[in-house]
């Protein structure tokens, strides 16, 4: 049955993207599941909103100096990209290697880091860690510019092991020190001056300057080091080569990918997939793309158990609804108000609260955040002037009995076209009853914004407000 394929494809696109409207779903369905997985995992031309167009409307998104404009700039990319997996992957690494504006006062370097995630985020984990260790925003964020051959600063060395690769319990305090020693000399060009500028939040005299990596051989501790039982005159790359060989690293990466792309909770069935992903990690030479391919092709991922097994993050909530509604495909002067909404819901792009990133899953939800979440998507998806909603109305009309829909057709049609979303019998009966209030819906000859269309808008509002819509 084709609808089962549609359900599965919608599931894939909620995970490897930000959900999909029916037109997009049909394009992916035409590729078949395997073809769709490959297309998503091998991003080509994103055809996103071009910079020259953005800059014509947003001066602040030209210099990319300040936080609000830069967060909106990334959101434009998420909204308009034809390669959603590229942005989803960048978002994954942004949450895991969480670097924030607060300490940097430097949005351009942060966006450069995001671009690095796009470029390298699906490749080898070893290469990614090397790039991360050379990333200027990360260097400042975790003080590696203060990590000197003569006096180490452990901050980056510690987090590299604890939060970015193996996880606590898999190394000793001595390993941390040795790791830090290996990364001495990994700093910024003109590091001292740049650090002062960042601390002073100074834009004078040249505006914000994007930093670049600099290796200072004279500041590097070239002595012998013993790290995780291996001894040598290790530099940073050598340390990373040892880290990526560890089983703990494979487990860490596989688990984090699983929780972001498959399910918040790791069940027994999920644990098996994590082990398969770990096997792929080693057999492929630490390739993230291959690990995700293993995941997406697993029986578990395609099963009912994995569907709607994640609470949508604020970014997924906002970008998903905006893409579904087809809004902001051109620059809009109030765009920062839209990206700020994610922050009000608890996830501001480029400003993770700490190096730990965001706490995900059910922790996204509290009463204030839930009100913001429901209100945003309900408003976005009930506006019958939005192109995506207009397209839903046309499809409903075509699917009705000569343009006439019974209340249950209206409720089911909206659930289908916004997802398909699976809801409990109780939720469905409330939706159908709500639709029944005004009897059958006749969409024949509907005109933009007329009462018939408003009824669809009201139905979409309620579907977007369901508990089930909170899940991905």
């Amino acid at each position, binding site marked *: 049955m084709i609808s089962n394929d549609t359900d599965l494809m919608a599931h894939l696109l909620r995970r490897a993207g930000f959900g999909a409207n029916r037109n997009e779903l049909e394009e992916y369905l035409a590729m078949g599941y395997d073809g769709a997985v490959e297309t998503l995992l091998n991003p080509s031309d994103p055809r996103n909103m071009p910079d020259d167009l953005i800059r014509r409307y947003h001066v602040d998104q030209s210099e990319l100096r300040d936080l609000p404009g830069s967060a909106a700039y990334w959101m434009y990319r998420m909204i308009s990209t034809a390669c959603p997996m590229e942005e989803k992957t960048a978002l994954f690494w942004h949450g895991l290697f969480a670097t924030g504006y607060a300490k940097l006062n430097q949005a351009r370097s942060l966006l450069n880091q995001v671009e690095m995630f796009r470029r390298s985020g699906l490749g080898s984990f070893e290469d990614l860690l090397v790039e991360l260790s050379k990333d200027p925003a990360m260097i400042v964020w975790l003080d590696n510019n203060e990590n000197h051959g003569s006096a180490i600063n452990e901050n980056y060395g510690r987090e590299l092991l604890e939060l970015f690769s193996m996880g606590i319990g898999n190394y000793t305090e001595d390993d941390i020190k040795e790791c830090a020693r290996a990364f001495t000399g990994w700093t910024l060009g003109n590091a001292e001056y740049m650090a002062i500028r960042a601390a002073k939040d100074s834009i004078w005299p040249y505006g914000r300057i994007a930093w670049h990596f600099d290796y200072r051989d004279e500041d590097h501790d070239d002595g012998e080091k013993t790290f995780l039982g291996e001894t040598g005159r290790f530099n940073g790359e050598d340390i990373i080569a040892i880290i990526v060989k560890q089983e703990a690293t494979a487990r860490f990466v596989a688990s984090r990918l699983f929780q972001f792309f498959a399910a918040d909770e790791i069940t027994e069935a999920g644990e098996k997939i994590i082990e398969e992903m770990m096997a792929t990690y080693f057999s492929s030479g630490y390739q993230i793309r291959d690990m995700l391919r293993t995941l997406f092709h697993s029986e578990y991922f395609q099963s009912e158990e994995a569907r709607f097994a994640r609470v949508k993050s604020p970014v997924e909530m906002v970008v998903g609804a905006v893409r579904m509604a087809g809004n902001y495909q051109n620059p809009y002067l109030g765009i920062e108000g839209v990206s700020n909404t994610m922050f009000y819901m608890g996830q501001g792009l480029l400003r993770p*609260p700490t190096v730990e990133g965001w706490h995900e899953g059910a922790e996204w939800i509290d009463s204030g955040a839930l009100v913001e979440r429901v209100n945003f998507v309900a408003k976005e998806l009930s506006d019958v002037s939005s192109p995506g909603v207009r397209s839903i109305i046309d499809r409903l009309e075509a699917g009705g009995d000569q343009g006439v829909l019974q209340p249950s057709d209206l409720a089911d049609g909206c659930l289908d076209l916004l997802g398909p979303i699976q809801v409990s019998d109780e*939720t469905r009966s409330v939706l159908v009853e709500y639709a029944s209030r005004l009897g059958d819906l006749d969409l024949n000859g509907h005109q933009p914004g007329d009462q018939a269309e408003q009824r669809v808008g009201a139905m979409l509002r309620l579907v977007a407000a369901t508990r089930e819509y909170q899940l991905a």
Partner: protein
Amino acid sequence: MTTTKREKSLIVIQLTGGNDYLNTVVPYEEGKYYDSRPAINIPQDKVIPVDGRYGFNPSMGPIKALWDEGKVAVINGIGYENPNRSHFRSMDIWHTAEPDAIGKEGWLGRAIRDLDPQSENVLTGINFGRGLPRALACPGVSVASVGDLDTYGLFPDVQDEELRRFTLEAFSRMYGGAAGRDPVMEFLGQTGQDALQGADILRTAPAMYSSTVEYAPDALSQNIKSISQVFHAGLGARVLYTQHGPQFDTHSGQLATHAKLWGELSGAVSCLMDDLKEHGTEDDASILVFSEFGRRIQDNGSGSDHGSAGVAFMIGGAVNGGMYGEYPSLAEAEQVEGDLRSNNDFRSVYTGILEDWLELDAVPIVNGQFEKFDIFTS
């Protein structure tokens, strides 16, 4: 629902953007002040003198009136060591009471947890504005964030009253139904009902309040009015938070902007104090006013850049009015990179508020022991 003895509440007004200390409490006797600020000084004859050496910004007339009644504590030279001049980082430091490491919990979030350890009241802490300031964020602590008290709740954009009522009813049934086995669905249902309940209770607040005080139409005054409505509705709100700004970031055109902001703030605070007096609750609420940092001593031609030491205010009927702490010296040798050097750790003010006003143990909230001023009348 109302208790006979009202518990003490804290009202916080955050000045976002970095309030200029030097032009708020002006050292008008010091030549160095005028030398450093050719473009943005407050002339001696415009300053409102308070103690012969320092005076308020001319737009702070109503605050001066409260000062004369002994209700205004001025806390000088407030900040922390190794000042950070990033808005975000410095505000984080104030919010989490953690100047060195990156803090995880807000100091007021912790206070709310201690005030209501069983989470019996969803309205113990309320923010007026959108999004939750980190000061109020703490895992497991539910804090309502009210953008607009009149339309607070779900589906505020639905104009048709009947449609909105039907939609809310449907929402309530969808979130009230048994969720079956799934704990996440259960949790979502509970949270949805909490949100509805909070909104329902808050919606009653304006009707339970009457006052002859007329608040100005600016955003801060309206938020302060909402605070007064909720405070006086007896809903058990103990921490009420709002912010003013972010235009305090006066890199340019400072004089006009700063005067406007302080005019609004002074008016709003003065209205609130009148309102409290009218309701006989003057001794039940205290107002903290703070900003993430002060501004550079030397002006930049039309404004001032990010600095360090600042000023905080504690205002209320139960406050011992007066000057607290020393005004930092403007002398070059005393400066820290062109800024006023702080001589009062902000956590000592927090400690005073937590111990002497909210009657909590401050040490675990501010992560340490800090000497405090005697700001509150006992």
